[in-house]
């Protein structure tokens, strides 16, 4: 019993098991909410919440105005995608706590910060114009049989090749 507990909750799960689980969870999400797993629009809405707090609220022509639209009671802070994002963070925290692997990991140097900011900006910009990130456009787009998922995937891989070159040259 203890062995099973360790195996299930403490040892890393095999990739193939995670692959099947993630697929199942995604299809459940699609059944329950009518839309599959996505991440980026939640980040965008958090950002818009901050903008609003600073008094900016001219969102005409924004992604939100054209494609967003909340159902009853949803706000920029609390909506389906935001709750999902928050839950993913908490789920990961739960996992590291149960396996006793949690630790605050400090930033080591400024170079790391520069890469983090540059990479983050590129991801945010790219995902916002392309209807999604590695989840919304790729992981949910391809199984939806929407061709944009494949196009996004191909160019994400190409971008990844360029990124790896940059990384090998300047980082390692």
């Amino acid at each position, binding site marked *: 019993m203890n062995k099973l507990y360790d195996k299930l909750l403490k040892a890393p799960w095999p990739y193939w098991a*995670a692959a099947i689980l993630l*697929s199942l969870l995604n299809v459940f999400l699609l059944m329950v909410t009518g*839309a599959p797993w996505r991440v980026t629009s939640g980040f965008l809405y958090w950002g818009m919440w901050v903008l609003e707090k600073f008094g900016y609220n001219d969102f005409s022509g924004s992604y939100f105005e054209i494609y967003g639209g909340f159902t009853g009671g949803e706000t920029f802070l609390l909506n389906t995608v935001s709750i999902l994002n928050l839950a993913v*963070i*908490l789920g990961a925290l739960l996992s590291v706590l149960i396996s006793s*692997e949690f630790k605050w990991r400090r930033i080591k140097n400024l170079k790391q910060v520069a890469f983090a900011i540059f990479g983050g900006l590129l991801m945010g910009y790219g995902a916002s114009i*392309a209807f999604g990130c590695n989840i919304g456009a790729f992981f949910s787009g391809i199984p939806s049989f929407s061709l*944009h998922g494949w196009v996004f995937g191909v160019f994400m891989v190409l971008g*990844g090749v360029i990124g790896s070159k940059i990384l090998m040259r300047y980082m390692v």
Partner: protein
Amino acid sequence: MTSERIEALKKRRQEEMKAIKTTDQSPYGWILLILILGTVSALFINQSHYMWVFPLGILLGFTLERSRFCFTASIRNPLTIGTTKLLQAVILALMVSTVFFFILQVLTLDIGNFQISEVPGALRPIGWNTVIGGSLFGVGMVIAGGCASGTLVRVGEGFTLQIVVLTAFIAGALLAGVFHYSFWHDSFIEGREAVYLPNVIGFIPALLLQLTVLGLLYAGARKFANRKKT
């Protein structure tokens, strides 16, 4: 040369992970779990929608962390250290999801008489925005050391750096999604409809084609790793 250095870095990180396993943190985990269950029942029980979304998100995060599943590494590893295990897992996940999504779509739709907007899933048009956005995203995720979901997981694991990534991600999303969006929308998106594969070649052919392509990619990834080994 560089791949050896990456391996060394990886090893060091694994040892760091081992070294901190000294104190038992699992009680905090169980407390967190009780808090989560409490939140679900207290806040969301009447909003049936959130009641499901929240636990599904928890399970997604838990699964990603426990398995060290990483979309970025799935693309980066074949190029840098020559391993394709993660890439194969991502392709496997796409195959499994393809089958599930297919079943759900066939059960939901009135075949032969439906609108694109009625198809359950993520269906979006294709344009230069997809090409440019996908490329920028690919470069960004490798440089930042984690994709959108990976960044969330790292934040949960306690990585301070990923809080910086997340903040920059939000800033980038705002720049494009609020301030530049009319440009992208007016130039490339407006008036286009998603290309839904079953509409183009039929339902069963679409399923078979997609599974075949993914299967070939899986086999290719496996071959690539074996070639690298020898």
